């Protein structure tokens, strides 16, 4: 018997299973393709990102030299001394130098002022790639005279034209060209600090090289032979490190650019991954309903002698093939989207991205889509094994409950493991993987719990006093074949992603703009020399502006921490002191009291002025101290522009950095730094844009070296930067929302035959077409409302948590935009629901009754 049976099963084989899968799909192809469309967008998003990732890696390699513009760059935050200069003069076959700093510039024609990054350039840099300008040759010719290249956004902002003039410090430069791209600079970095190039030989004459201002000097070297560069670098590396000079090679730039991109890419891939998971949940839901409709046919097959495995395999083949087709279409769309992504990401990435097809990414996407739809499709398919042939005789035959089904539990475990492994491939470590997967799991669980509770609540507190149409609409939420949980999870998650994004952006903007309230400072003037201080203060009074703060600033760097210098700290890996603790320039003030944005968290502030001979007790910002591994009582030796000052850490402060005023990592007591070279910062408040422009013009013209930041500019820059980042994230989150809507379309379509039978019965019993439409509209409106509402509530909770723990701010959700999201999603759900159900009401009853599901 058993041998016979095996022989028989062998004879039918895979060919018959494929034939049956093919035959059965003929009448359901549109429906099956609709299910599979749920994965299409997820795969499209991932293939686009995989392709982008592959392209960018190639592009970084291909354009590595143009990223840096030279073979070697050495950076310093002060002008080189004679030994350093001698050393620099021995390097490279060609040399260029650059000095960059923040400064105000003045557009003579429009009388506009703006804080920019001035780059004084000498030599023929860049050696690889170009300063891309309009006109094209301006990138080279501007060096020939008193000319400048001005960033294109600035040109637009001040309506400037080539040939106009700008004032940089005490000199006037003719605009030789519009700068569109410089080596290694992304659109985002130019938004924050728009660049203006001037020839290096005019730097001194601008009068901006004042002591105390922050300058960065870069020396670019071109080598004919790479090995010479490597040898020379190896020889001078100890000297560079000893003198706190930074250096970069093509290789190191390649790595750092790759790392930056990896972060962006990883984040976006995770959003794409969420879209794919949403789609897969959609597949599982749709197939579950589909299989429920297939129960009679499966029972007939079983009755005719098909084995459990055979019937199961027929549908598994269908789902796998359709998963493959879905993934194929997704890969195609993803490849098309990849042509668009470079345009969307152009501001975030410093390299020119090519759009060649990445076959490996396509293969990866197709494989992933097929496997995931196979796994998620398998979940509802497992129930096939429990279908009894007895159903051919009796419709109501009890099936095994899911929780008793070990195969289902095992499959869920496999899916979970697969998701964890996929996430791990995107993440850097297991910790991040755990956080992401747990977050995802908690979100799914929360959405599911909310959906179950809401469904239960509708049932429990059913509004029986309402009229029939409302009751029927409500009842559809919990009746058999309802899509409540599936739709709330998918649409809810999409809504949650979009609104969390919006709320976070809003939170950041509000946090900055909050400080612009009445009587709050909104303008900072810095780089004021000691000799200019009184004159600038007078100018402030002449404009009837209040003076909130007058802060002296001294630049210095840390020489030793607890007797350990940079070299020793590098040797002693156990100390944990990061190397950047020694190299960086610190801007320090001196005073004997706390400001409104500070709170003492440990130790005591030196309340009295320093007495000669006594120890110097400094106060440190708590987080900074933690990063450089410093505790109360530790000794720090500062190098104040050549003079060494030993100090002891006396206290820690907590600082609110978001307020528009000066904040410091290190505060000295009064009486120590008064005679050190210093500059000043004044903080004031301008009442209007007009007053701001007039005041800025006067300051720039009288004190060209003084730079000004006004809150309006910060807000504008922040808005632009967030806007650019948010657009990219929104683009990816859009995949999630659209996937949610596709799942909605598929779910509505798959249950329409069920609804059709009910509609026919209702019509037979005398329901009008209008009443049927109203019932359908109400059902989908409730669904949309529940889904959008749940998503929004969760996003508000997420934003409150983000505000509390990440941004340390209070948060009150903006009501109007959230209401707009709520109604748009609800309405969209109704429109899709109604559109898909349109045939139901219009179909003649007999046609429906004869139609096979």
């Amino acid at each position: 018997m058993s041998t016979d049976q095996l022989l028989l099963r062998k004879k039918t084989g895979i060919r018959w299973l494929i034939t049956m899968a093919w035959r059965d799909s003929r009448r359901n192809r549109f429906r099956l393709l609709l299910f599979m469309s749920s994965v299409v967008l997820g795969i499209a998003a991932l293939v686009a990102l995989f392709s982008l990732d592959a392209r960018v890696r190639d592009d970084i390699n291909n354009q590595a030299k143009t990223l840096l513009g030279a073979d070697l760059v050495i950076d310093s935050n002060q002008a080189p001394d004679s030994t350093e200069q001698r050393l620099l003069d021995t390097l490279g076959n060609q040399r260029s130098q650059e000095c960059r700093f923040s400064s105000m510039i003045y557009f003579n024609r429009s009388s506009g002022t703006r804080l920019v990054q001035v780059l004084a350039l000498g030599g023929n840099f860049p050696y690889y790639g170009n300063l891309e300008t309009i006109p094209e040759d301006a990138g080279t010719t501007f060096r020939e005279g008193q000319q400048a290249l001005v960033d294109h956004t600035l040109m637009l902002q001040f309506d400037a034209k080539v040939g106009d003039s700008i004032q940089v410090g005490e000199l006037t430069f003719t605009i030789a060209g519009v700068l569109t791209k410089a080596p290694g600079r992304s659109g985002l970095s130019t938004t924050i600090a728009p660049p203006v190039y001037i020839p290096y030989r005019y730097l001194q004459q601008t009068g901006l090289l004042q002591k105390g201002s922050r300058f960065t000097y870069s020396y670019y070297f071109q080598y004919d032979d790479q090995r010479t560069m490597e040898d020379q670098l190896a020889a001078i590396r100890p000297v560079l490190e000893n003198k706190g000079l930074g250096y970069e090679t093509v290789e190191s730039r390649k790595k750092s650019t790759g790392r930056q991109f990896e972060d962006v890419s990883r984040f976006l891939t995770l959003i794409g991954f969420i879209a794919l998971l949403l789609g897969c949940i959609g597949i599982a839901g749709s197939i579950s309903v589909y299989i429920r409709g297939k129960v009679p046919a499966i029972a007939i097959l079983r009755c005719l002698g098909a084995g459990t495995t055979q019937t199961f395999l027929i549908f598994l083949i269908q789902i796998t093939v359709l998963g493959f087709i879905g993934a194929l279409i997704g890969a195609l769309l993803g490849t098309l989207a990849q042509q668009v992504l470079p345009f969307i990401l152009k501001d975030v990435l410093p390299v020119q991205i090519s759009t060649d097809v990445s076959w490996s990414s396509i293969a990866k996407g197709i494989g992933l889509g097929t496997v995931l739809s196979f796994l998620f499709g398998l979940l509802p398919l497992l129930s096939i094994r429990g279908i009894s042939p007895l159903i051919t005789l009796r419709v109501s035959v009890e099936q095994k409950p899911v929780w008793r089904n070990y195969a289902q539990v095992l499959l869920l475990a496999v899916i979970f493991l697969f998701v964890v492994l996929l996430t791990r491939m995107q993440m850097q470590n297991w910790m991040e993987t755990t956080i992401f997967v747990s977050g995802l799991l908690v979100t799914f669980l929360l959405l599911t719990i909310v959906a179950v509770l809401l469904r239960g609540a509708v049932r429990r507190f059913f509004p029986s006093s309402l009229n029939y149409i409302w009751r029927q609409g409500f009842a559809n939420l919990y009746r058999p074949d309802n899509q409540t949980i599936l739709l709330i999870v998918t649409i809810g998650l999409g809504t949650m992603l979009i609104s969390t994004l919006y709320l976070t952006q809003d939170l950041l903007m509000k946090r900055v703009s909050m400080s612009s309230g009445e009587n709050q400072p909104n303008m900072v003037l810095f780089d004021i020399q000691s000799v200019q201080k009184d004159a600038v203060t007078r100018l402030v009074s002449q404009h009837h502006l209040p003076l909130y703060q007058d802060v002296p600033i001294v630049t210095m760097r840390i020489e030793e921490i607890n007797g350990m210098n940079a070299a020793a700290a590098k040797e002693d890996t156990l100390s944990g002191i990061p190397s950047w603790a020694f190299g960086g320039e610190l801007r320090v003030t001196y005073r004997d009291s706390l400001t409104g944005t500070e709170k003492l968290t440990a130790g005591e502030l030196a309340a009295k002025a320093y007495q000669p001979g006594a120890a110097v007790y400094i106060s440190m910002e708590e987080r900074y101290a933690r990063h450089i591994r410093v505790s109360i009582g530790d000794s720090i030796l500062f190098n104040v522009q050549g003079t060494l000052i030993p100090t002891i850490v006396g206290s820690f402060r907590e600082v609110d950095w978001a307020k528009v005023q000066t904040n410091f990592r290190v505060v000295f007591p009064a009486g120590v730094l008064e005679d050190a070279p210093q500059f000043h910062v004044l903080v004031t408040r301008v009442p209007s844009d007009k007053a701001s422009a007039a005041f800025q013009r006067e300051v720039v013209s009288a004190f060209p070296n003084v730079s000004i930041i006004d809150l309006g500019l910060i807000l504008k820059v922040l808005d632009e930067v967030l806007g650019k980042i948010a657009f990219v994230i929104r683009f990816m989150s859009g995949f999630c929302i659209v996937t949610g809507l596709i799942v909605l379309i598929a779910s509505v379509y798959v249950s329409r035959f069920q609804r059709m039978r009910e509609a026919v019965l209702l019509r037979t019993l005398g329901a009008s077409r209008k009443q049927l439409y109203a019932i359908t509209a109400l059902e989908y409106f409730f669904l949309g409302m529940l889904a959008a509402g749940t998503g929004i509530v969760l996003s508000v909770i997420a934003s409150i948590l983000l505000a509390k723990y990440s941004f340390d701010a209070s948060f009150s959700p903006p009501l109007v935009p959230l209401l707009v999201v709520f109604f748009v999603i609800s309405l969209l759900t109704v429109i899709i629901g109604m559109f898909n159900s349109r045939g139901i009401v219009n179909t003649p009853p007999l046609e429906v009754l004869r139609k096979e599901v």
Partner: protein
Amino acid sequence: MDTILDVRSVSKSYQSGNKKLTVLHDISFSVEAGSVVAIVGPSGSGKTTLLGLCAGLDRVSSGTIEFNKMRMDDKSEDERAFIRNRYIGFIFQNFQLIPTLTALENVMVPMELQGERHIRAQAVSLLEKVGLGDRVHHYPAQLSGGEQQRVSIARAFSTSPKILFADEPTGNLDDETSAKIVSLLYELNREAGTTLIIVTHDAELAESTQRIIRLKGGHIIADEQTHHSKPQL
């Protein structure tokens, strides 16, 4: 004649909440090969349950069922599926055709399950025999009730089963079509020598068989021969 079906002390119970519901009590009978038997009784008497058990669609709670000298009650579901495919044919009140397959494919499925190839001509011939030679490529939804039942008969006889179970085969059909279907059924029974077990409410159909088993409340209340040596129309 040989016994093809031997039902011994069969009971069937279902658990309904905390209550145990017994629908068949200690049923025993046997059926000779080639005979035509009707099982009759009012609704809820256990007719369909008995048919399901005899055809290996369900398991007994107690007792034994031997089909063609093979015990049915100790077989797994897949083993019973094998027996059904090899030896048993079915006709249902609501036809039970697979809606996504054409008439021809519906008839081919049982043969395909046996691993047979080149069966298309045989299936077409069966459909021609039941008068549907011109509707082979129609889907069930495109056929009338009578036509669907004829496809179902062609399918049932496609594997030359030893026994055919018919559950209310004329229950969904008008009188004229019912007569045609029964005539077709008996004709095929005569030609192939297939044992027929018919569950029916139709007294006239029951009278046309050779033996009537009457059920009531899960018990056999009568088991009588109709004195027909062969089924009568």
